[in-house]
């Protein structure tokens, strides 16, 4: 099939403002959008810039705005986008070059929620026990690959860049609901602010954007509930 890629280009070293580049690519319908981007970079215009690595949806490098929705370019097949596809950088983060955005603020927010197991009690010699049922409670949020698709699809985040954002809350959830973790209170306190979970307006864009199928809004809801009903 023939696909026309309409790509939002911007190189601050030479462009005054962003522009649209159009590239026609001949490809199999079962190929990934990432394959088409690679074709353009490798055989048409070497200056096209984006991030990519694993090419099968587990490293989280190539999240971008594809036909108006956030997705991973390596998980979108050409047959699903039609003959013309627009590709833009994710919204809400500074564009550095073409499809590549500044992820530093995104990772800073991730770090804010203390995304690591916190324990005070004695470590056993072997493993800590955890039942399959206890493990199941936070299974969904362990799937996050930190691609930023959810956070950069969130209107609350666009409106207020200080908002910690769905990805950071998902990763807080992963620990708050882990039966082994003892940092629940400090993490909940971090999220109990105007820039924490309460800025979520349950718009559900994040659920739609997540390439891992995480029910992000539900996870945020569970954190809100934990805050409302926590023991003081």
């Amino acid at each position, binding site marked *: 099939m023939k696909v026309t890629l309409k790509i939002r280009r911007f*190189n*601050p*070293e*030479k462009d005054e403002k962003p522009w649209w580049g159009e590239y026609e690519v001949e490809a199999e319908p*079962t190929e*990934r959008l990432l394959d088409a981007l690679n074709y353009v*970079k*490798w*055989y048409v*215009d*070497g*200056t096209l*810039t*984006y*991030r*990519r*690595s*694993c*090419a*099968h*949806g*587990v*490293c*989280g*490098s190539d999240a971008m705005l594809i036909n108006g929705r956030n997705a991973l370019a390596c*998980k979108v*097949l050409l047959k699903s986008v039609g003959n013309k596809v627009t590709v833009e950088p994710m919204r809400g983060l500074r564009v*550095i*070059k073409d499809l*590549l955005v500044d*992820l530093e603020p995104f*990772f800073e927010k991730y*770090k804010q929620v*203390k*995304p*690591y*197991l916190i324990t005070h009690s004695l*470590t056993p*010699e*072997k*493993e*800590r*026990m*955890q*039942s*399959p049922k206890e*493990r199941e409670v*936070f*299974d969904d949020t*362990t*799937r996050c*690959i*930190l691609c930023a698709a959810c956070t950069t699809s969130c209107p609350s985040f666009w409106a207020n860049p200080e908002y910690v954002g769905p990805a950071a809350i998902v990763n807080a959830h*992963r*620990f708050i609901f*882990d039966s*082994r*973790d003892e940092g629940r209170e400090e993490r909940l306190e971090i999220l109990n602010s105007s820039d924490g979970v309460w800025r979520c307006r349950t718009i559900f864009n994040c659920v739609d954007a997540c390439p891992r*199928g995480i029910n992000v809004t539900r996870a945020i809801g569970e954190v809100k509930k934990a805050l409302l009903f926590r023991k003081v």
Partner: protein
Amino acid sequence: MYQRYDAVIVGAGGAGLMAALNLAGHGHVAVISKLYPIRSHTGAAQGGIGAALGNLEEDHWEWHMFDTVKGGDYLADQDAVEILCREAVETVYELEHWGLPFSRTPDGKIAQRPFGGHTREYGKAPVRRSCYAADRTGHMILQTLYQQGIKNQVHFYNEFHLLDLLIEQGRCAGVVALCLATGEIYTFHAKAVILATGGCGRIYRVTSNALALTGDGMAVALRRGIPLEDMEFFQFHPTGIYKLGILLSEAARGEGGILRNRDGERFMQRYAPTLLDLAPRDMVSRAIYREVQQGRGIDGKNYVHLDVRHLGSEVLDQKLPDITDFVRTYLGIDPLREPVPVQPTAHYAMGGLPTDLEGRVVIDEKNTPLPGLYAAGEVACVSVHGANRLGTNSLVDILVFGRRAGRHAGKYIEENDWVPLPPSPDGPAQDLVNQLLSGNGNERAAAIRDTLQDEMMDKAGVFREAKGLEAMQQKLRELRQRYRQVKVEDRGRKYNTELLEVIELGGMIEISEALVAGALARQESRGAHSREDFPKRDDPGWLKHSLAYQTPKGIELKFKPVTITKFEPKERKY
């Protein structure tokens, strides 16, 4: 730019992060990584990490050791394998203590499942040894280590590409790297350097490896006179998604999946009657090639079927959710209803920078260390995998030897001072970048890379013979010539990812030269190295490691003995 650290780690996958965590507190340490750490390829590992915990049935590290030695066709150094299998157990507990969300047994312990080549009682039957977190074990390991890195305030230089290794007075003096964001070249002056840059699967057309896996650490070291050990041994994983190469974990077969040919026959019965579909990867990949050669591929094409229909939706959704998703996404088929087209995919370099048991890089047949230089993970060759790695052992390797390298380097930086930098330490790197950015060649890097990948797949893949390997050497000479005329269209400094890809390609050609030279020299078939013209293993002639050196006259090979402690070489039958 000049930066000075006690130690610099290059690469932020499992090995690099583990080294960093063990160095934290011992000095001023930095991790430089081409990718954001969380994007590293450790995250793509699926099926599990092998350790004889014995949570579901009796198991012992000695059994694990035997399986690893036999799986590696007796080429592994057994002192190293012993460390691997003993320390695997404490390593898995350490990961759990750091919060890794393992899947659990009904009584709350870490869940374990069978995996290729892992057996009880020295080969009697499969054993449940692979500790897993659904089919995203690597993802959870990478996340857990990165989280610990944040907790321990490890200092990361994200999106820095390794350009050169500095050696002065016979000791390691640091590295030179390109900052992708600014295009600036940094000299990192360090007492110790740990290379943990991963593998080089992108030298092949069909591969499970990420686009970033271009063997950067191997290439940079090779150019500085450090040998690469056992490069001729490259593992092809039997079950890559047809054409795409995306990995479908051996866990699919561990949970009961079956390989079938065009007649629906479970052909592994003929190749490995005891372990069947759970035979080691080299044997299963060869079996698939043989089936295809003999006309039993599906529709006469070069693939077979992986059948998981009988496992039911609960196993697929609970234990293999990611690979079920891959099949649905990339093939548009439901693995519950249809068998999955698979073919062998280039997966893992058993070879790499030779190291000793402490992760120190050694540079000759006598295992003389190069002070201050360490390597761990796929970039290294300890050798624990010998001629063929068992599934789950790469995750053990990165953690056990990442830790050992980190610990030893921790002592080293306390006891040693900085070596002075060579004059103009970043000169060669600056020249390379300036030359590429100002050249007026007309060769497209992608065209050179396409040829390299196709030819390597064809001539240095699952089966090799002298004629093809000699032709490959000729091809590599041509590619080197063409590479001299390579063009870089992007002349900018900031995030010049085209420049990055061109630099990577140069290294890929050189690594391929080492691999092909080793493959041509080794006139036997052992593990993943299978010569059509020398179909038998030859212990008197070839029970030895190869060391490939880059010289002005081309690759020169030397050899060193294999360390054998507990298990004398025997014929390898499953």
